[in-house]
């Protein structure tokens, strides 16, 4: 096969391994700066919320429902109240008039149904793990002891647990709603005027083309940030101060004010060091509200810190979708349309952005391909399980998985190389900017270049040859090669786009840059980091903008009293939106300094140029002294001799609202060895070539890619939140919710191509979710590729050894045992006769 390599030379950088160049010279942006954050983190001088000890602080422990669905018929708190050290016990009845309802900021349709969402259940619980009471005590141990003495009587109700059955309303998760269907949302390219009619494309393909019909399951995952959630609320003084392990201090502050009827100005939220989030801390949680209520009730500072098992049970989950897909193509492999029908499990309640997660994927199923017809339809369904919400990628991994699996299936159907079929359909380099079938304008990209580079690093052709040898020799361990040529949309988001999608807030970000009299610079960002390295990257940006040393820039964030405005960190938006706001603020500072510089240099403002931190008069030549911005900072502080009308300060605020998303992309190639005897799959090699536009810090970028890869690989191979038939989460600890370890993973080969974004001045695109979005289909494609000679077309995730083994067994025996959930869960429509959606369902490929 051939992949066009046109334009490759211009965009391929050197191997993007850690740049060891001198840190003292050249522009900061692009340098592999070691992180400023690390010193405190590697020496244990950290500021986690749970570290806080305030005088008189009380501790909160929760009592949670063991039932998935039940009415609360009685609650006896006498023993708990009299337990040593217990100060108060709060039940739903106690707080029902003050706790409000937890917010959902994204009503995707006007008629969206949602139950009230209490922080403490009042008379009914809707999932196992829902809080029914809390005990406040003088020590954490006393609180836990007291919590165990709260005696609750329940009447168990039938629980809605299976997504497909729940969609059919067989059992109601919330009887008062009368249905489990929360909302139904459609995008149709013909109706939207952005493309053609997908039914026509499907009819045409049925007639004389190729139809690929599949059902894929996106299992339920748990974000599993390493720092368990923790909240401290101090009610003393004039305001409530909340420390929380949150990704979204600003959103949290507003929502607390709206939920608890307290003036926003009386609430200060601080996100100190936060130990990871991955979307899991993009939430306004019951426990934050509860800790607030406990502090208000007792008048004392209160702390709640969860255990890991509590976290797995009650922090929101992610994914959990069933996808029914129909891909239409011509016989020569040109894709003509795609229809997506989706069921999305909301769990028991709607969280902050729960309903919108599938919508974030709706615009990405077409991915890098330029087919003309597309329809997306999703039904959001309530079940009696932990609520779902954003998890790394939120909607986009699901979409990418579907299309990248389908492209492999199309190639297999046609007997062609999967990369070749992709190239036939993808947007060519010269076609950017490109308006997709969803109406989005892709800013830039070069799929040819990334793919060529990835193939080279991977040794694609050699591995294909080895695969052929193993197939021929009927090796017990088969080799499979998996491809994922992904794109995603970052930089959430243009506010008007969010508005058109009924999201409750905007997508801008805020920054301030302040020159201090000493010449140091303070940068305040609304983008609150939890591991992303903003302190380092923002310093690099500002150092270049203002021409000051990297070390002289201090980045402050995560405290609503310091960073008074912001929309926080999620959706790979920090750099492309928040970073751009920093650029704008720095530029404003320079412009603010210009009149003073002109005054000092006794020149006309228009004759000044600013470079490397110094204003000079244009054309003044060598030896002509300029004035540095740090000198000007001191002059504004003294304010002895300022131009008329100039404020005595050198600082500026800026708010950036992006005009478009950015669209990073990349080609990931994965080789998996599948032991056909045991079903065990082992990764042999993985190459990721990402194009995320311009890079501020390659070290940080690589780290983001590595981490994302393993999370995506973990979805393919290991992780799944499993409920038993009672609705108890049985993968409820790290014993059974299996995160991979060092010994389960490999070292990756990463590289980049660079197609600068046109959506922001930095030319950056966002990288936080890329690895996680790309890797899941790459791994599953590889496993299926290894097993395809056995007549296997799919393995349900996670591809556990047992599941792979059973798929192999079923493919050979034409039936037999199948795992629960390994079967398609849609009843309408039959799978294509030639290509059963699941080998385990139809078998008979032997």
């Amino acid at each position, binding site marked *: 096969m051939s992949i066009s390599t046109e334009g490759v030379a211009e965009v391929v950088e050197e191997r993007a391994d850690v740049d060891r160049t001198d840190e003292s010279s050249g522009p900061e942006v692009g340098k592999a700066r070691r992180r400023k954050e690390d010193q405190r983190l590697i020496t244990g001088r950290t500021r986690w919320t749970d570290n806080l000890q305030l005088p008189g602080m009380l501790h909160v422990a929760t009592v949670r429902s*063991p039932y998935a669905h039940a009415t609360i018929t009685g609650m006896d708190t006498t023993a708990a109240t009299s337990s040593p050290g217990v100060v108060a016990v709060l039940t739903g009845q106690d707080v029902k008039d003050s706790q409000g309802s937890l917010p959902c900021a994204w009503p995707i349709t006007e008629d969206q149904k949602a139950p009230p969402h209490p922080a403490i259940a009042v008379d009914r619980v809707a999932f196992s793990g829902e809080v029914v009471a809390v005990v406040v005590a003088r020590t954490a141990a006393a609180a836990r002891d007291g919590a165990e003495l*709260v005696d609750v009587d329940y009447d168990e109700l039938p629980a809605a647990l299976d997504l497909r059955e729940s969609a059919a309303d067989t059992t109601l998760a919330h009887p008062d709603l009368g249905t489990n269907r929360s909302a139904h949302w459609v995008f149709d390219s013909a109706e939207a005027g952005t493309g053609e009619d997908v039914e026509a494309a499907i009819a045409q393909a049925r007639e004389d083309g190729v139809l690929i019909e599949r059902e894929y399951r996106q299992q339920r995952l748990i974000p599993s940030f390493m720092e368990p959630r923790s909240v401290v609320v101090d009610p003393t003084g004039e305001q409530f101060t909340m420390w929380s392990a949150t990704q979204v201090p600003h959103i949290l502050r507003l929502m607390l004010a709206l939920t608890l009827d307290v003036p926003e100005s009386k609430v200060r939220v601080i996100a100190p060091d936060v130990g990871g989030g991955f979307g899991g801390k993009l939430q306004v949680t019951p426990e934050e509200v509860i800790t607030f209520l406990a502090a208000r009730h007792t008048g004392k500072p209160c702390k709640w810190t969860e255990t890991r*098992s509590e976290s797995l049970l009650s922090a929101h989950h992610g994914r959990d979708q069933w996808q029914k897909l129909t891909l239409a193509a011509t016989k020569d492999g040109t894709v003509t349309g795609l229809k997506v029908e989706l069921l999305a499990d909301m769990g028991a309640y709607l969280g902050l952005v729960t309903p919108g997660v599938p919508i974030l994927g709706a615009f990405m199923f077409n991915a890098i391909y330029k087919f003309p017809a597309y329809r997306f339809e999703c039904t959001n369904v309530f079940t009696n399980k932990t609520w779902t919400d954003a998890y790394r990628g939120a909607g986009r991994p699901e979409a990418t998985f579907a299309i990248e699996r389908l492209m492999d299936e199309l190639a297999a159907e046609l007997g062609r190389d999967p990369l070749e079929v992709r190239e036939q359909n993808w947007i060519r380099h010269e076609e950017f900017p490109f308006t997709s079938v969803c109406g989005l304008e892709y800013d830039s990209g070069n799929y040819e270049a990334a793919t060529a580079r990835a193939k080279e690093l991977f040794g694609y052709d050699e591995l294909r040859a080895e695969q052929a040898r193993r197939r021929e020799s009927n090796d017990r361990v088969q080799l499979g090669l998996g491809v994922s040529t992904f794109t995603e949309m970052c930089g959430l988001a243009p506010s008007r786009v969010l508005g058109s999608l009924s999201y409750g807030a905007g997508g801008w970000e805020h920054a301030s840059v302040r020159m201090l009299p000493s010449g140091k610079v303070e940068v305040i960002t609304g983008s609150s980091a939890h591991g992303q390295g903003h302190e380092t990257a923002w310093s690099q940006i500002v150092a270049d903008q203002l021409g000051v040393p990297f070390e002289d820039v201090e980045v402050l964030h995560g405290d609503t009293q310091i960073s008074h405005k912001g929309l926080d960190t999620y959706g790979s938006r920090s750099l492309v939106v928040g970073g751009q706001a920093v650029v704008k603020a720095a530029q404003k500072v320079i412009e603010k300094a210009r009149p003073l510089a002109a005054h000092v240099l006794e020149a006309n403002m228009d004759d000044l140029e600013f470079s490397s931190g110094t204003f000079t008069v244009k054309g003044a030549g060598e030896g002509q002294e300029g004035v540095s911005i740090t000198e000007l900072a001191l002059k504004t502080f003294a304010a002895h001799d300022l131009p008329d009308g100039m404020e005595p300060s050198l600082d500026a605020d800026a708010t950036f609202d992006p005009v478009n998303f950015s669209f990073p992309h990349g080609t990931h190639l994965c080789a998996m060895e599948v032991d056909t005897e045991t079903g065990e799959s082992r990764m042999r090699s993985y190459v990721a070539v990402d194009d995320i536009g311009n890079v501020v810090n390659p070290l940080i970028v690589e780290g983001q890619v590595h981490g994302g890869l393993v999370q995506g690989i973990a979805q393919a191979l290991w992780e799944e939140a499993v409920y038993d038939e*009672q609705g108890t989460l*049985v993968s*409820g600890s790290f014993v059974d919710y299996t995160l991979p370890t060092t010994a389960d993973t490999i070292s990756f080969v990463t590289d980049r191509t660079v197609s600068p974004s046109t959506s922001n001045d930095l030319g950056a695109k966002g990288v936080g979710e890329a690895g996680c979005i790309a890797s899941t289909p790459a791994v599953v494609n590889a496993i299926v590729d290894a097993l395809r000679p056995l007549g296997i077309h799919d393995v349900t995730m996670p591809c556990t050894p047992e599941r792979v083994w059973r798929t192999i067994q079923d493919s050979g025996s034409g039936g037999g045992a199948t795992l629960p959930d390994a079967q398609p869960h849609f009843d309408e429509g039959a799978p294509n006769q030639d290509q059963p959606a699941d080998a385990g369902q139809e078998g008979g490929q032997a």
Partner: protein
Amino acid sequence: MQLEHSFVVPADPDTTWALLTDLKTVGGCFPGATVTEADAETFAGNVKVKLGPIAVTYEGTGRFVERDDEAHRAVIDGTGKGLRGLGNAGAQVTMQLVPDGPGTRVDVLTELNITGKPAQFGRGVMQSVSDKLLGQFVGCVENKLAAGDGTP
């Protein structure tokens, strides 16, 4: 989870039925169980499940939800509340007696639901634990019938 047991006792169905429907005797057969009160239709008590590292106590009640003295078929519902906030346990036990030569075959079908911590942290062990405990229960009943004690 569903657990099935079947055993044959050297007693006729009527004798066997009389013992099996004596809730005090039958309840006392559950490993670690103490029946604190019992009448013809209901019983109350506690069960201390002690197994290696695990020791959990459930307090609960049980009653006949179905009892057919003619057909020798009964359904007993039991629910227990775990102490120390351990979640709850519920069991629905269906007993069916069938003549088997001179003796009686007893088929016991148990639908056991364990919620909360033991299920959440189980590593799947609760299934094995339950199976074992029910096995002991059945063994005890079997012994009582074989020995002819406990017969009213």
